[in-house]
């Protein structure tokens, strides 16, 4: 498979902090993978995703999207990626359709096709009847579905997901996971960060466990489970590698 994202010796230290959020991290993600980024709180997952999305600049190291370097081609890269943040990144007083239309327009999608895509997307996630309702009236699960749609309307090559199913009911979760599976089948590369280890084990084709700003292990879920004696789940592997100590950072 073709390499789509390459990270080389990436380090990030935030201003005023004496601790590295990312330390000499190298990584390769192939086209069509569902790449799971797992790790305890403060491990550096969000910093890595924010850097890969072009939101923050690294302290040192290099990143490439296909053959494009992030330093020179940030806008071009951002045109080809989709981001689904952990927050409900939507305007509460705008309707679902208005939110989607606005975010889709920022990717330069033509008005006519965008309207069709919005209607089709809402129908796909079971929200066609709520298109003209303001987001603030939606339940958590409904907002998560719209949040996901806002990140995929422009059909990105790579989709970044940060806890896409946190706080949603089983039905919404099923719709979200089915849609993600569909995108994967269509060739979209998914980079997924979550604390739901069971979900990650079944959903991801490849997993990297990150801790203290570095990748400590990387491989297919089953390979990782088999690599730790006595482990039957990804959770066993995770605890084995990162320990049981609480990770609190302020």
């Amino acid at each position: 498979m073709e390499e789509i994202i390459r990270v080389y010796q990436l380090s990030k230290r935030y201003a005023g902090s004496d601790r590295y959020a990312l330390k000499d991290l190298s990584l390769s993600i192939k086209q069509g993978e569902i790449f799971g980024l797992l790790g305890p709180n403060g491990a550096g997952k969000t910093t890595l995703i924010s850097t890969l999305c072009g939101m923050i600049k690294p302290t040192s190291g290099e990143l490439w999207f296909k053959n494009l370097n992030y330093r020179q081609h940030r806008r071009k890269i951002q045109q080809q990626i989709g981001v689904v943040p952990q927050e409900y990144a939507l305007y509460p007083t705008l309707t679902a359709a208005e939110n989607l239309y606005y975010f889709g327009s920022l990717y330069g999608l033509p008005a006519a096709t965008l309207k069709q895509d919005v209607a089709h997307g809402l129908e796909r996630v079971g929200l066609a009847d709520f298109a003209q309702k303001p987001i603030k009236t939606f339940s958590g699960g409904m907002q998560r579905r719209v949040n996901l749609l806002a990140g995929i309307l422009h059909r990105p090559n790579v989709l970044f997901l940060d806890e896409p199913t946190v706080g949603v009911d089983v039905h919404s979760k099923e719709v979200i996971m089915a849609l993600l599976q569909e995108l994967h089948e269509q060739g979209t590369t998914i980079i997924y960060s979550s604390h739901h280890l069971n979900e990650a084990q079944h959903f991801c084709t490849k997993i990297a466990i990150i801790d203290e700003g570095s990748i400590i292990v990387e491989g297919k879920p089953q390979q990782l489970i088999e690599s730790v004696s006595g482990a039957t789940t990804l959770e066993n592997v995770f605890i084995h590698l990162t320990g049981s100590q609480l990770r609190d950072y302020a």
Partner: protein
Amino acid sequence: MRKLIVSAYKEVLLLLRDWGGLAILFFMPSVLIITITLIQESTFKAVGESVLPIVLVDEDQGEIGQLVAKNLAEAPNIQLVTELDGSPIDDNRAHALVSSGEYQIALVIPKGISDELNDKVNYNVDKILGEFALTENDSTTANPPEKKWKAKEITIYFDPAAGQTFRNGVKSNIERMLSKVEVQKIYDVFINQMELSEDPGLLNDEIITFNETIAQKGEDGIIPNAVQHNVPAWILFGIFFIVVPLGINLVKEKNLGTYIRLRTSPVSYAIILGGKIMTYTVICLIQFALMLLIAKYIFPLIGLIEFDPGAQLPLMILIAFVAGLAAIGLGILIGTVAETQEQSAPFGAIFVIILAALGGVWVPTFIMPEVMQKVSAFSPMNWGISAFYDVILRNGTATDIARPLGYLLLFFAVTLMAALFYDKKHQTH
């Protein structure tokens, strides 16, 4: 371009669905302009056009008391109060009425002042005429014996709440009236002593009069009044209050997570801000139009002077537009730096009030202490008010307002650049 228009449209939708924000933008300035203008108009009228009740205690019951009462009664803006509940008012009661705030002023004419004034005037006139040996009994009046009088005091009680300016104004008017009474008295004695067959009418016409003219350009200038201070002042205040909803708008975006989506989309932050600038500039112009409509059509209905911009309207629109940009720049900076609504809203509101106070919205800058006048020169609202005054009161041209407009544009550029710089710095850490 489409991204910019879509961003502006999104801002319009957000504003239309935010009733609190709309109230801050349109309702509050409308209420403020009406309320403050009414209040300031009343204060202005307290020494000018409105009826002021004055308690008069005439313990003299002589000529002076009658003349003072007559002059006060004839004054167009004074209501003379000499008795309450059918009984005359004495010195103690007058003091009590004023100290309780029921009346603002009381005047007490002391007993015997008329006799004393008559005596003094007669003595002085006799003495002067005696010098010229013009009286009947030349031998006796030529050198009348020296006499001394202890000055009689007319007491004026003022309400403790009355301001110094008001007190000075009233005191000056009463002093002028008493001087007139004294002059009239001296004149009468002269006429009487000189036994003229008829009054030559020397006091009928004033020798020196005043021609009050407002120095301004052009022939058809407007006479300044409280409305012409308050309309531009509160238009600017309303425009700058845009800082509050705009700051909240930006902070909300950060807190909601939509900021992440915007920053990871292939669009520059300048376009996102451009959408806000477009929308809020239109809001500023709508605010301006609303305030002008209130000043033109509502003011006359509530007893205030109508404000008519006349031919100066295009320049006023230009000032409102540029002032709007300055306000938007400040709002963007506050919204970019603040992390929570609890930071942006109170800071924005208080900062605008400080800028307004410094800029001469509450009190005109020319009556500020010298130090504050110098500080005032750094307030963007002062630049805006200066430009409005140049246009409204001095019939100024576009060239005349180029400097304050330049300052406002510079303020917009500096605040916007600072916001972009801070965002870039903050974004990249």
